[in-house]
């Protein structure tokens, strides 16, 4: 039985936001025409049945993440919405160039800062005191040279789309960005759950990520490593929230997944303890934070790291990906200077703008911000994952006053931003589609050059009205389709 033609979209409210599917006049945007047409033939019951198929796929494969501080069985699946996000070739062209430009400038900045002449500080592009006061500025990384300036072998740049539909950079995520495993698994699940809708589009594939990453890792190996350098994935272990992804990536690349205790440093060379004895390691894709890497240099109580690792890196015998000390460029106050870095190092105008950001040590900006606290977002500079922030319009008077005290006491510790009215995307909620806020995290991989995986992780805030898309706080995801250049739906049998 086929129900009314427009059931799924019945009563759909675009709201006062940029809607990814429907333009202001209600017309379907170009990239979505074939998909919306296909959905008009689909009943809510049918979609719910497909949701169950999807859940079966994810559970059977144990595609889960760990929630800290949750007493219930700590593993949850990361819910994937059945409606994909579609990005046209033209839109993607802007995103791709913008991300490459940004990551290139950030890599240049990190090289300049840690092993170069510090031209950005010398020329006043970024205030020297701001950099040296950043929590994640790592003095122990000074003088470490990184092949091809590839400090960020993997970057997961978070983009949001404002009310005008402009993509803006929210965060750069240059340390250990996670989520790429969901990009690949979402795609596999979509091809099984909605094969026909998928076949009507020419979607750029994402399954080459493992090869892309391994190629980059080998390119950044020390020159002495020869033709086929040995790379490993270093994980904190099975209790880490992203362990599934660590194992997933090791499998995709066909390389070993190791923990700190599997590695040993002798005479500034890193070895892996194998059943055949000690085997030399050239590149480490590490998913451990800086401070746990090496108890000799950082936290002496860390059991996750490898004693002597930093000395091996310094001696040029092994390359860490990502490099040590990237966090300084993730500092939310340093973030405000990335457009200036792009002009300084590349002599280009930024392709992707920042979100309007206010620096609170500046008396004038701080005064303005304190006057408008209930309209703004305030974030601690060194946090990530959406923790510890104030969303003014949604906050109680007490919360606003609490942040007023904190900002006044520690102006360097916070930044303020205009609230971005994040774009919304139709998302399946029960029997209907409703608008939910989304962002986009493309993954940029840098070896000799920088490449961007087509698409990335679209995160969606599943709770009505919520702006927080983080998986730890009730977020879900969408498969993200980048259409091939000619963008038009392919005509295929059975489509």
């Amino acid at each position, binding site marked *: 039985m086929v129900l009314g033609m427009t059931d799924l979209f019945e009563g759909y409210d675009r709201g006062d936001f940029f809607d990814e599917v429907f333009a202001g006049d209600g017309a379907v945007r170009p990239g979505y025409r074939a998909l919306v047409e296909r959905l008009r033939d689909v009943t809510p019951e049918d979609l719910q049945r497909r949701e169950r198929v999807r859940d079966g796929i994810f559970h059977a494969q144990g595609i889960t993440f760990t929630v800290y501080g949750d007493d219930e069985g700590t593993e949850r699946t990361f819910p994937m919405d059945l409606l994909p996000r579609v990005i046209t070739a033209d839109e993607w062209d802007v995103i791709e160039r913008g991300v490459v430009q940004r990551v290139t400038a950030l890599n240049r900045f990190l090289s300049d800062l840690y092993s170069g002449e510090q031209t950005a500080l010398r020329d006043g592009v970024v205030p020297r005191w701001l950099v040296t006061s950043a929590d994640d500025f790592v003095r122990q990384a000074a003088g470490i040279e990184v092949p091809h300036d590839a400090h960020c072998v993997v970057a997961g740049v978070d983009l949001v789309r404002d009310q005008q539909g402009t993509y803006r950079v929210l965060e750069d995520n240059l340390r250990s960005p996670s989520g790429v495993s969901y990009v690949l698994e979402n795609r596999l699940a979509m091809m099984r759950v909605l094969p026909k809708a998928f076949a009507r589009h020419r979607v750029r594939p994402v399954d080459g990520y493992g090869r892309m990453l391994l190629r980059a890792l080998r390119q950044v190996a020390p020159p002495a490593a020869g033709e086929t350098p040995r790379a490993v994935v270093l994980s904190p272990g099975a209790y880490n929230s992203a362990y599934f992804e660590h194992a997933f990536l090791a499998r995709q690349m066909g390389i070993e997944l190791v923990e700190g205790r*599997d590695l040993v*440093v002798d005479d500034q060379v890193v070895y892996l303890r194998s059943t*055949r004895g000690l085997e030399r390691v050239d590149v480490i894709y590490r998913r451990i934070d800086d401070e746990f890497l090496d108890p000799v240099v950082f936290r002496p109580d860390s059991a996750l790291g490898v004693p*002597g690792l*930093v*000395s091996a890196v310094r001696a040029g015998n092994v390359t860490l990906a990502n490099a040590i000390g990237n966090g300084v460029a993730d500092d939310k106050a340093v973030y405000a200077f990335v457009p200036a870095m792009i002009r300084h190092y590349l002599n280009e105008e930024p392709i992707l703008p920042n979100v309007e950001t206010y620096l609170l040590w500046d008396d004038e900006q701080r005064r303005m911000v304190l006057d408008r606290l209930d309209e703004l977002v305030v974030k601690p500079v060194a946090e990530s994952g959406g923790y510890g922030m104030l969303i003014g319009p949604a906050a109680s008077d007490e919360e606003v006053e609490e942040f007023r005290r904190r900002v006044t006491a520690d102006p360097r510790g916070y930044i303020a931003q205009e609230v971005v009215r994040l774009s919304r995307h139709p998302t399946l909620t029960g029997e209907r589609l409703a608008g939910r806020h989304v962002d986009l995290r493309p993954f940029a991989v840098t070896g000799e050059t920088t490449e961007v995986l087509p698409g990335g992780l679209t995160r969606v805030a599943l709770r009505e009205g919520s702006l927080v898309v983080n998986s730890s706080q009730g977020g879900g995801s969408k498969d993200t389709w980048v259409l091939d250049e000619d963008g038009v739906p392919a005509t295929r049998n059975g489509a």
Partner: protein
Amino acid sequence: MLARLAENLFWAGRYLVRAEDSARMVDVTWHMLLESPSTETSRAWEDLLEVLQQGEGFEQWAGGDDDLMAVRPDDVVRWLVSERSNGGSVLASVGMARENARSVRELLSSEVWEAVNDLHLTLHRRDLPHELGDQPYDLFRTVKLHCQTVMGVALETMPRDEAFRFLLLGRALERAEMTCRLVSVRWEDLLADRAFQLAPTLLRSVGSLEAFRKRHRASANPIDVLQLLVLDRDLPRSVLFQLEAAGAQLARVGRAGRGPEGPSARRLGRAHAALRYRDAAELVELGVEDVLERMQVEVREVTEAIGEEFFTHAPTGALHAVGAVGGEGAS
């Protein structure tokens, strides 16, 4: 492969055997005693505790002396099967097998992992104290079947890579040691067992009674039991069989095949040779208990040698370079 993972597989194999064999022995003892005079009861449980190396732990846990134990066979069963504080109980062995298997999930086929996990979950769902006190047959049967399922699935689904070989290596050494202990502890009684009542129980407790009857028909000679359980090359429970199985795996792991045999293969080879060219009568002459106790020591030394050769690699030089990190220049 990674040394740590190889070690976990080795121990997963050992714990699985330990769980299965303990369940089998407790099962046989429990049922045998139903038709035995009560004077034999305490002796049978004492021997079993010794075979499973659980005597000392039990006495500490039960807090009693020898007299008390005679009247507490239920406690012995509980200690050996379901007691959580006993790291060697069936329940704990299964838990340890699962922990080790979980850490090497990437290397096992998913069906092997599921089979191990199933066993663990099954035991935790059941009312063990009640079953042990009332009708334990089904519980023991479940443990045995599940353990065998794990190995059956492994045999059918896993490539013969190092992961598989370390799993089997752990099993073989655990079983060799266990059979040595069993025969050694019971040998004196076997010799004194004129009516030949003990031998069938012993053979059944290692699942070999039928094989014995086929091989030796109506024999009531303890020498034949010795021949089968220690020296037989075809019976999968015999000591010699397991040493040869271990040797076959050792020959294909690590650097094996590239140059001279490693220290653990050499050590195992010597242990093997001590039995391979003997017959049962010679073992009796040499002293069965002595031979088997020495063999247990040798098997343990093989295990240690395996640890050194495959699981723990220390760098040859000193860690002299660590800490040579400056922090100047970037401020």
